[in-house]
């Protein structure tokens, strides 16, 4: 059989999990080759906040937040609630901190603890008020060879700030847009793009080849062992030989409509990742008998769409994060009723869209709407609309809640009653229905100048506004089941020799839960690290 190229370890994908796997496999003595189906390096990581959630990481001591393996266990056990397994959690708890230290000692990756950014359940036993989520230091893209720098995928969703800066600035009116403009001018990258650029430089320093425009489609198996892949390149079928192992890190399946329909627990209408995550790696694994896990779940993210915006030829879906927690906004369903604590973490909020009504046989919380008033508009942003900007035509508006409701097809009496009730709670600062702003995480995105609850203010200043909120996701959570070495298991729970998986192509390590900001990347990169280490040692 003819091969287009041969290597020891073949890594599929270029997100952070993939690049960590490549670096660690190289450092373990393997000859590594990385394949990426798109024409850019970075995968889902590049368009993300780039935060890496790792309990008990060494940066926590720098900001005076103690942590321990025991506390991590306590928190993670409650978080996964039986939906993951202790072998995976043990590997994550042990190797996550080692992965962080390794990258900082041997690659250009630099982290800093987000001391003010809490776990998503900071009130639980073992939860922390900050420090487990690691921010990336800004990265000067001029450190990369120019031909590589232009291939780094840029994130369309978040500005060139660090999370620590954003935490300090608070609402967008305090953002330092001049600093951000200077970063654009000087080609300084932040967030997920910075993480990818730093990891890519780590690959460049090791002469690890990254080949773009090569889409792996099938695993090659000899005598029960994975020995390479068949791929598409420029319309041709080519084969790559992997003497030791193949690492699947091709992301989730949130852009594969058929897989979403077959597997997900409910509608996913707005992926925020690059539109190349079509479950390629998961399908390849399925074809060789891999066991699947958590296929019904996703890293849910309520999302909005602005007319005319595109990314890679598809509708751009925008994250709805701060807007949910700013005072003077609520989220309602078609009946005009609130149905969730708007300030809870996005992944758990997303599950509330999937409440199924057995009488009407539909999802009453789809579509949902973010409702806010003019006072909100004068103080806070909505996607690209800043305080002081003229409200664009794509935002529905009405002089009364009833008039607004009529325009968006929501029950007018329901919306009016909801706002009246919420306004009473806002005056008191206590959300008796859903507990909005009840934890330090939920107050994080509020307005510190507003009290007694920084996430609540009455909606009483017309006009009233609405935008549709969709059940979107950062990516899907289900994928190939692995063991604590990141080896892919077959349907009988046995190792498939020569095959590893990590990132969103693997079943989520933390199961149903989301530990904190970076809860995707932390486990993903840790299992990338494990995959690279063990694959090189095959």
């Amino acid at each position, binding site marked *: 059989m003819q091969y287009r190229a041969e290597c020891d370890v073949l890594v599929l994908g270029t997100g952070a999990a993939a690049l960590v796997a490549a670096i660690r496999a190289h450092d373990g003595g393997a000859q590594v080759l990385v394949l990426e189906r798109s024409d850019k390096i970075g995968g889902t990581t590049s368009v993300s906040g780039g935060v890496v959630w790792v309990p008990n990481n060494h940066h926590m001591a720098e900001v005076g937040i103690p942590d321990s393996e025991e506390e991590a266990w306590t928190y993670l056990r409650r978080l996964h609630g039986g939906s993951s397994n202790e072998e995976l959690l043990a590997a994550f708890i042990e190797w996550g901190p080692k992965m962080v230290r390794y990258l900082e000692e041997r690659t250009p990756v630099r982290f800093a603890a987000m001391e003010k950014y809490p776990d998503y359940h900071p009130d639980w036993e073992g939860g922390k008020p900050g420090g487990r989520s690691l921010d990336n230091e800004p990265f000067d893209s001029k450190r990369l060879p120019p031909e590589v720098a232009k291939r780094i995928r840029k994130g369309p969703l978040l500005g060139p700030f660090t999370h620590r800066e954003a935490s300090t600035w608070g609402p967008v009116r305090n953002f330092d847009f001049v600093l951000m403009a200077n970063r654009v001018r000087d080609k300084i990258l932040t967030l997920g793009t910075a993480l990818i650029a730093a990891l890519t430089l780590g690959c460049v320093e090791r002469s690890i080849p990254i080949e773009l425009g090569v889409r792996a489609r099938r695993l090659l198996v000899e005598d029960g062992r994975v020995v390479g892949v068949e791929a598409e390149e420029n319309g041709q079928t080519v084969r790559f030989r992997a003497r030791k192992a193949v690492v699947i890190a091709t992301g989730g399946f949130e852009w594969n409509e058929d897989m979403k329909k077959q597997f997900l627990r409910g509608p996913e209408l707005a992926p925020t990742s690059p539109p190349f995550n079509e479950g390629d790696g998961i399908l390849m694994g399925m074809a060789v008998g891999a066991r699947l896990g958590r296929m019904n779940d996703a890293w849910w993210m309520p999302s909005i769409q602005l007319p005319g915006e*595109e990314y890679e030829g598809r509708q751009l879906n925008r994250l709805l994060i701060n807007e949910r927690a700013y005072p003077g906004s609520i989220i309602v369903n078609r009946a005009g009723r609130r149905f969730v604590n708007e300030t809870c973490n996005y992944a758990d909020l997303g599950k509330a869209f999937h409440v199924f009504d057995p009488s009407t046989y539909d999802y009453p919380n789809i579509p949902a709407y973010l409702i806010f008033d003019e006072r909100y508009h004068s103080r806070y942003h909505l996607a690209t609309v800043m305080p002081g900007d003229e409200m664009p035509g794509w935002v529905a508006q009405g002089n009364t809640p009833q008039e607004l409701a009529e325009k968006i097809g929501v029950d007018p009496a329901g919306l009016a009653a909801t706002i009246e009730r919420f306004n009473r709670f806002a005056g008191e600062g206590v959300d008796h229905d859903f507990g909005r702003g009840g934890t330090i995480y939920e107050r994080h995105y509020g307005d510190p100048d507003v009290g007694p609850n920084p996430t609540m203010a009455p909606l009483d200043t017309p006009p009233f506004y609405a935008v549709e909120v969709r059940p979107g996701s950062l990516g899907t959570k289900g994928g190939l089941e692995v063991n604590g070495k990141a080896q892919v298991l077959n349907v009988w729970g046995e190792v498939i020799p020569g095959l590893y998986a990590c990132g969103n192509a693997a079943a989520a390590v933390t199961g149903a839960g989301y530990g904190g900001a970076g809860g995707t990347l932390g486990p993903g990169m840790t299992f990338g690290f494990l995959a690279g280490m063990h694959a090189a040692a095959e």
Partner: protein
Amino acid sequence: MPVSQRELYIAAPMEKVWDFVSTLDNVAMCMPGYQRHEVIDERESVWYLKGDVGLFQKVVAFVAHIERMDRAEGLVSFTLAARDENMKGEGCFRAWPEGEGVVVQLELKLEGGGLKGPLVNALLSSTLPDDLEYLGDRLKEVLERDAAVGQ
């Protein structure tokens, strides 16, 4: 305000160049990311342009309004105001005969306003020169092709 200027030679008669650029909708069709346009009246139209600031693409509707049109000076100037975006700008064409063709000076200014203005302007500063390059190339291509057909 991010500004970009370009001067180019077009091998076409002055009369043809003037007739083309003084109908602003012809210019719209040569703009990068042109999707469509709507004529409001002889001095105003709406241009739907798909912009790319390097992060994502967005179709923005600009109201283009002719401010000045002076055939004797070979001058057309216009303003641009984005709908649904805090962004405005202006453009200018100045043309004069030289040899058997025409020298055309192009200028395009575009500015983001409001809180995020500095960030938008930083992005525009990097893309506006490419946009004007495209506009100049398209004008030259269309006018020289038409001139060749007319010969």
